[in-house]
C-alpha cells in the first residue's frame, strides 16, 4: 500500500522590489568612491530612491578641494598585482589613476565631480557625516553645493527608514 505524503507547508517569501537604498561611502580612493556612486546612479535609473552618506575619507568625494584629486591606491591593494615596492614609487598612483580613468571614460563613467552633479540632478540626496566633518575640522562651505546637509548617524538612520543600507 502506498501512502501519500502531505505537501510540506513552506511559506514562500513574498517577492518584493527594492524601493529605496541608503549607500554609505567610507573610502577616499578612486576604487573606494566609484562603486557607491555607480550603485546610487543605477538605483535612480531604476526609479529607486537613493540617499548617499559620505563618511571618513569618503568625504573627499564631496570636498571642493579634494574632489579632483582622488587616486587609485597602488599600495596595500593586492588586486593591483604590483609588488609593494613598485607601488610606492613616485607617480605610480597617478599613472594607475590615469589608466583607470581612461578606461572608465570609454564606458561613459564621468569623473567624480561630474558624477556628483549627475547624482544630484537625478534626485539622489547627498549627505556628509557629522562625526567625520568634525574630525577633519570642516564646515558646510568645504563641500560642493550638491551636498544637502551634514547628518549625525542617528539622523541618517531616520532618513534611511525602509531603505536597503549598502556600506562601501
Amino acid at each position, binding site marked *: 500500500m502506498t501512502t501519500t505524503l502531505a505537501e510540506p507547508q513552506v511559506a514562500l517569501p513574498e517577492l518584493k522590489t527594492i524601493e529605496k537604498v541608503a549607500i554609505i561611502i567610507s573610502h577616499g580612493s578612486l576604487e573606494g568612491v566609484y562603486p557607491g556612486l*555607480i550603485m546610487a*546612479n*543605477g538605483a*535612480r*535609473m*531604476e*526609479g529607486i530612491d537613493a540617499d548617499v552618506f559620505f563618511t571618513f575619507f569618503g568625504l573627499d568625494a564631496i570636498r571642493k578641494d579634494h574632489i579632483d584629486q582622488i587616486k587609485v591606491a597602488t599600495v596595500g591593494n593586492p588586486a593591483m598585482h604590483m609588488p609593494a615596492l613598485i607601488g610606492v614609487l613616485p607617480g605610480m598612483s597617478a599613472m594607475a589613476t590615469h589608466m583607470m580613468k581612461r578606461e572608465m571614460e570609454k*564606458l*561613459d*563613467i*564621468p569623473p567624480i565631480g*561630474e558624477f556628483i552633479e*549627475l547624482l544630484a*540632478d*537625478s*534626485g539622489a540626496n547627498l549627505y556628509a557625516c557629522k562625526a567625520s566633518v568634525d574630525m577633519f575640522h570642516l564646515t558646510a562651505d568645504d563641500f560642493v553645493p550638491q551636498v544637502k546637509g551634514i547628518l549625525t548617524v542617528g539622523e541618517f538612520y531616520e532618513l534611511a527608514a525602509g531603505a536597503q543600507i549598502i556600506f562601501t
Partner: protein
Amino acid sequence: MTLALKPTYTDVDVDAEGFLTKPEQWDEDIALEIARANGIDPLTDRHWQVVRFMRDTYLQTGNAPTIRTLGKASGVPVKELYQLFPKGPAKLAAKIAGIPKPRGCI
C-alpha cells in the same frame, strides 16, 4: 467585416518586460501606446526629443545612450529627464523608442 489593423503594442515582439525585440516593428502609434501603458500621457514634444534621440543613437551605434550622454547630447538636461520619465529615464525612453532594454550600468 474585418479591418486591416495596424500592428499595435500587443502584437509586436516584446521581451518579458515589454521592450521591443525587433526595433523595425516600431512606429509612433506604438510609442504612444507603450507610453500610456507606462503612465506617460500625453507624450509631449520634450518626451519625443528624448525618445527620438534614444532611437537614433541606437540605430546608428547599436547601443542605447547612457544617462550621462542623454543629459549632455539629447538637449534635455538630467533633471528634466527624471521629471519626464520619473521611473527611470533611460529604460523607459528606450521602451517607448522601441529598442531593446539598455544593459549599461551608467
